[in-house]
């Protein structure tokens, strides 16, 4: 296993139980100028099978950030244009959450929330008072159903999402979008096809289709299309653009601005704090069922008139619960009494890790590595990405803020941690084909059309102009639905 996954073996997501969900590093290598952990799923459904399911709306705090601070380029869209598309995808995917009325984390069309447990509820109440409503601990908003949807069952609280849910209780392509597409009667699903390039016609300045090779037989096949959507995950869409139309643009289709492959971002995390809920009257409280989420604590830094020595901010994901048998490792005891004690729940504990926004930086880039080929003979991507001073400064607050909040709410034995972070670990790759208002400084326009080929749309994380600090998938879904609606309109108007 280590031979096939030299990169993925570095961290927790890879495991034997869902091994078939992960792309092989050996067949599909890449080049790391600096360490970059790239988690890929090349099966039907891709990473929608393994994702963390946290689903949050962006706000204008995020869409306006670049313009306000003079960083990178401005987003060509604002929250008001996105809101109806967030509504649409939340209803379709099935996102649960609570209505909180927070400006920095807009409410949505949610199914009923998976509530905070009594330990979290206690801390949440104290925090709300202590910080005047500015720091709020709310139920994590996740793409797990709490009400049935057609063909899908509500979550049964097994907490076994990473196996691929047999009930379709969390959003994945398999549970949600593929069945909807199949119902149209116009879906053809072609597994084991690797799109090697987008075919471009220099006379019409349009793409005419894609060339694909069969992953098993290596046979190539051309597919013609009037409109092409690239939604292959951030680095894969950009990699494909780089392999396309190189006779017209040596840097690939969409490279005329010089920005294709640049401004790679992720969320930096694995820093936070934890402690024990001792003496807080919870000893006679427990919970039933395995909730597949925890709490979320939305961004509060560089907000409410405050200014830190870094830009942007972070949110926390965490949870409280009673210790299980694992506490026995650190406790004194062997023998009968010890064994029976370890079979009962222990102390309540609480902990959280921050997810911090990473700044767009032209120097963080991917290029083609012509010296290395994958199993199918394609030049691989070379990734050169690192965090900078802003992230470094933010990480202090990511640890100390949570420690302070826990201490102030009465949590005992608070400990901070920073388990270290390398780009890619967040599995929130964004950027490299950014959206903008100007074809000279961006790769796609406000409708996700590649400036250099308007019938090619890039709607995954590649198009992100900045990263926010919230989990990005819901925004990709909303952007994709919005772009698809636009494409249909344009086709009907014969503009494409």
């Amino acid at each position, binding site marked *: *296993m*280590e*031979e096939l*996954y030299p990169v993925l*073996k570095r961290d*927790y997501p*890879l*495991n*034997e*139980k869902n091994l078939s969900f992960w792309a092989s590093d050996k067949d599909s290598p890449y080049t790391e100028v600096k360490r970059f952990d790239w988690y890929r799923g090349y099966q039907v459904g891709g990473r929608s099978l393994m994702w963390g399911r946290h689903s949050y709306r962006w706000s204008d705090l995020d869409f306006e950030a670049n313009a306000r601070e003079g960083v990178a380029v401005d987003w060509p869209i604002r929250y008001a244009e996105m809101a109806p598309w967030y509504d649409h995808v939340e209803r379709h995917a099935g996102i649960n959450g609570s209505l909180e009325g927070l400006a920095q984390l807009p409410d949505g069309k949610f199914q009923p929330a*998976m509530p905070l447990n*009594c330990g979290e*509820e206690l801390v949440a109440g104290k925090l709300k008072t202590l910080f005047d409503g500015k720091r709020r601990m709310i139920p994590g908003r996740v793409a797990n159903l709490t009400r049935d949807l057609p063909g899908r069952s509500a979550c*049964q*609280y*097994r*907490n076994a999402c*990473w196996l691929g849910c047999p009930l379709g209780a969390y959003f994945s392509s398999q549970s949600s979008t593929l069945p909807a597409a199949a119902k149209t009667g116009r879906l053809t699903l072609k597994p084991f096809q690797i799109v090697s390039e987008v075919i471009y016609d220099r006379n019409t300045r349009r793409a005419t289709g894609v060339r694909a090779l069969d992953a098993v037989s290596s046979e190539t096949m051309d597919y013609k299309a009037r409109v092409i959507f690239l939604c292959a995950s951030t680095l894969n869409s950009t990699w494909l653009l780089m392999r396309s139309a190189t006779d017209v643009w040596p840097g690939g289709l969409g490279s005329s601005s010089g920005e294709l492959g640049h401004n790679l971002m992720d969320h930096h995390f694995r820093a936070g704090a934890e402690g024990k809920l001792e003496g807080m009257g919870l000893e*006679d*409280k*427990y*919970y*039933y*069922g*395995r*909730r597949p989420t925890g709490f979320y604590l939305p961004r509060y830094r560089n907000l409410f008139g405050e200014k830190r020595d870094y830009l942007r901010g972070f949110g926390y994901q965490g949870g409280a*619960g*009673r*210790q*299980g*048998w*694992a*506490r*026995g*490792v*650190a*406790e*004194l*005891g*062997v*023998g*009968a009494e*010890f*064994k*029976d004690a*370890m*079979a*009962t*729940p222990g102390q309540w504990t609480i*902990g959280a890790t921050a997810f911090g926004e990473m700044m767009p930086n032209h120097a963080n880039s991917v290029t083609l590595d012509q010296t290395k080929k994958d199993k199918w003979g394609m030049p691989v991507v070379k990734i050169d990405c690192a965090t900078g001073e802003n992230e*470094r400064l933010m*990480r*202090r607050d990511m*640890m*100390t803020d949570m420690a302070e909040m826990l201490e102030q709410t009465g949590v005992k034995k608070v400990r*901070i*941690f*920073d*388990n*270290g972070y390398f780009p890619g670990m967040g599995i929130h790759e964004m950027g490299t084909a950014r959206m903008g208002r100007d074809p000279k400084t961006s790769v796609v326009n406000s409708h996700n059309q590649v400036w250099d080929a308007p019938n090619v749309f890039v709607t995954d994380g590649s198009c992100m102009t900045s990263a926010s600090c919230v989990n990005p998938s819901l925004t990709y879904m909303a952007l994709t639905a919005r772009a698809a609606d636009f494409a249909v309109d344009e086709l009907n108007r014969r503009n494409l």
Partner: protein
Amino acid sequence: MTESETSSGYTPEMISRREAIVRVTALLGGVALVGGTALLTGCRDANTDVPFTPEEIAFLDEVAETILPQTSTPGAKAAKTGAFMALIVTDSYNAADRKIFREGMRKLDEATEDAHNVSFMAAAPAQRLAVLNVLDREQKAWGDERDARTLTKAEAFLTNQRKESAPGTDVSAAPAITTDPPTHYFRMMKELALLGYFTSEIGCTQAQRYLETPGRFDPCVPYTPGEKSWAAHA
């Protein structure tokens, strides 16, 4: 799957159990396990050690049974915890930790000889328990000292960070706070016994309460002391 997993002679059921285990531990916010990531992925450096013999596995069974004996529920031996411990050490421990563990088996036997003039396997249950109680205090003292050092470092770091006038404090120093020094052999054995037993079918369904499909989530229910834990998804 690695070569070692197909040739190690352990049942597939045991092998497939492993990853859930680390996940369980992580979810419980529990301990940093020896062999951490490697345990999860089945990845390790090349292991040319002599495989654990049936006698050694029987020895580990008795160590585990002494830590987690049969009470109103079956003990560690019934859950084949010794074989589990051998599997994890073989497949997931690095060379240095494997050495500590294997030498620890010898040290444990010597400690029994010193105290009771008898090998661990020949010792009576009460003698075994007495030896392990001593070793447990030893590993606990070792662990407490390590925790105290960690806490001191963390507090110094926090204090430093809270001073507004602490520019240029290197945040990269932080990972050092959570780096663990080498571990005590009996801590390894206790850890693996707990891990093996409480994630076994017996440990989940008899020692604890297990429901594959709880069907609902109650965020707050009354708890009466003595009620068993709900086990994680296996």
